[in-house]
């Protein structure tokens, strides 16, 4: 089942002779339970693609659909994008981006609170997620007291808190060593399989490429392909 569907997405910054086309007719598709990588050098347009999928920037043309809902369709967009995000998306960043004045548990709770889940139920969910990601014993600590790997796990727990259809990750392994990076990729794989979310990662971390189901290359604003990777464990053809 297709969860992320991007069709002929174009983003032009500026106008006239100063116009810069950051994205040209990008089309990608990610199914439920799949891990997709968006690869490309700096300035190629991959962050523009991610922010367009997240509804943070408004594309110039094209179509962006998450699940059954197209929130952008050639100039039309849903009115409350922030609400759409909190109901359908989770975010993970390279720099973990935890709220510095909230403990690990509170960082997860805040997403639940924004989604209208409060009280003991929210606490139970947060606790369960943190345990699931192996940082249950660190839940009362502020981000500054957590290691990089622990912060990334808390960030993943936060991204999962609203049971999103899609998790958008920006360089999630770039700040981690190979072992921890692989551990995070394994976690993504587990989440995709167990929770059924689609995971879209912007990355140029070639160490982790083999962990993805689909790989999209972005170069000069063009998305070149969406090759399906061989199933994990089988040798590449």
């Amino acid at each position, binding site marked *: 089942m297709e969860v992320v569907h991007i069709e002929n997405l174009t983003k032009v910054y500026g106008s006239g002779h100063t116009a810069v086309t950051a994205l040209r007719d990008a089309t990608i598709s990610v199914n439920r339970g799949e891990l997709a990588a968006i690869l490309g050098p700096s300035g190629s347009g991959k962050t523009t693609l991610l922010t367009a999928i*997240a509804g943070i920037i408004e594309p110039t043309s094209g179509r962006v659909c998450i699940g059954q809902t197209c929130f952008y369709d050639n100039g039309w967009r849903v009115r409350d994008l922030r609400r759409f995000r909190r109901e359908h998306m989770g975010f993970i960043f390279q720099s973990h981006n935890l709220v510095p004045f909230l403990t690990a548990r509170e960082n997860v709770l805040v997403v639940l609170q924004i989604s209208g889940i409060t009280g003991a139920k929210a606490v139970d969910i947060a606790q369960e997620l943190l345990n699931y990601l192996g940082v249950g014993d660190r839940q009362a600590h502020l981000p500054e007291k957590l290691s990089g790997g622990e912060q990334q796990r808390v960030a993943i727990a936060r991204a999962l808190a609203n049971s999103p259809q899609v998790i958008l990750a920006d360089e999630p392994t770039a700040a981690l060593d190979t072992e921890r990076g692989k551990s995070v990729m394994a976690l993504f794989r587990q989440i995709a399989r167990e929770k059924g979310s689609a995971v879209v990662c912007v990355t140029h971390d070639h160490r982790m490429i083999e962990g993805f189901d689909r790989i999209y290359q972005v170069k000069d604003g063009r998305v070149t392909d969406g090759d399906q990777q061989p199933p994990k464990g089988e040798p590449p053809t």
Partner: protein
Amino acid sequence: MNLAVRDLRQHWGRFGLSCLGVGLLLALVLSFAGIYNGFVADALGLIRSSGADLWVVQKDTRGPFAEMSRLPDDVRYRIAVVPGVRETSPYIFYTVQRPWHGRLLRFVVVGYDLGTGMGGPSQLVAGRGIAQAHYEMVADQKLGLRVGDVVHLGLHDYTVVGLTRGMVGSGGDPVAFFSYQDAEEIQFVKDNWAIRNARQRALAAYTHALPTQPTLAAGLARSFSDNPELHNVNAILVHLAPGADPAAVAAAINRWEYFTAYTTAAQSELMLAGSVALARRQTGLFRVLLTIVTTVIVAQIIYTMTLEKLKPIALLKLIGAPNRLIMGVVLQQSLALGLIGYVIALVVGNLTYDKWPRRVLVGLPDQLLLLAIVVVICLVASAMGLRRALRVEAGAALTG
């Protein structure tokens, strides 16, 4: 989970200092309200405590407090026969500053009639009232005298027989009460050195004038033996008979050629429209300035606190936080700053007001008004921070 409180938890030391600073500023704002109230209370204290219904003063003057008024003390008997008047009493009011045991005593001399007691001391906290017509005084405790102390004034020594509390003149100087006869003597009778000096000056003038200006010399010679005019007072206090209309009795007295009568309300108005009106404008202006300064400082603190959390705000927007949640954080922190500052202002005020040199009277209406001002200040001061917070793009969380 309250995000505003969670954020403050991280910076409680700095936030506490900010609250203290804002609290001290608010304490000043509140103090100026209290200082003005103190001015009014001081200005009206003697009028209210006198028990008089009417104040009769020299024609066309606004005495005895706002302006000098002088009239013979026997006028009391003429006024006493006006229909509606029950009793009258002479009243003297002037300020003196005299050395006493190595320090200066500055106080208001109030002379009153011991018989009627009108205009005399109230709120005695030690000793007794004046019991004999001469050489006794009752002083306000603010003057620093004790019962039994002796003060030399003019030709005589006066013994402090009682102490009052809170009896001050419109300038804040403590009041000392005397019989009106003693008050007249203190004011008009020169001491021996002054008499000798005046005689020497008069003799020199007489000697100089005698050869060429015999009429002037004769006048100067008469002045050697002149007694000063003692029997002048500053006002006659009037107590009306039950049922008498103050305005009607005042109108009757005003029709006489040389007197002006004020009701107690009119006398109070004269005081408030005089020196107190200026003080009111002065303190009012200062309060406005302090309020503006407080607003600017609170705005700056809130704006700085907002700038420090732009990244978390962008993150909250990215994960779908509605604007009201983000506005709530900024507004709650601003209100917390203002309200904690307000409580500090109340505590600091209550601990210090009795140590101020002049009376500071802060009532519940002043406190409630300040609370309303604080809330408005916080809302206004949040505007800049709110504007900045709402302009943060969710994408800033991604781009770092």
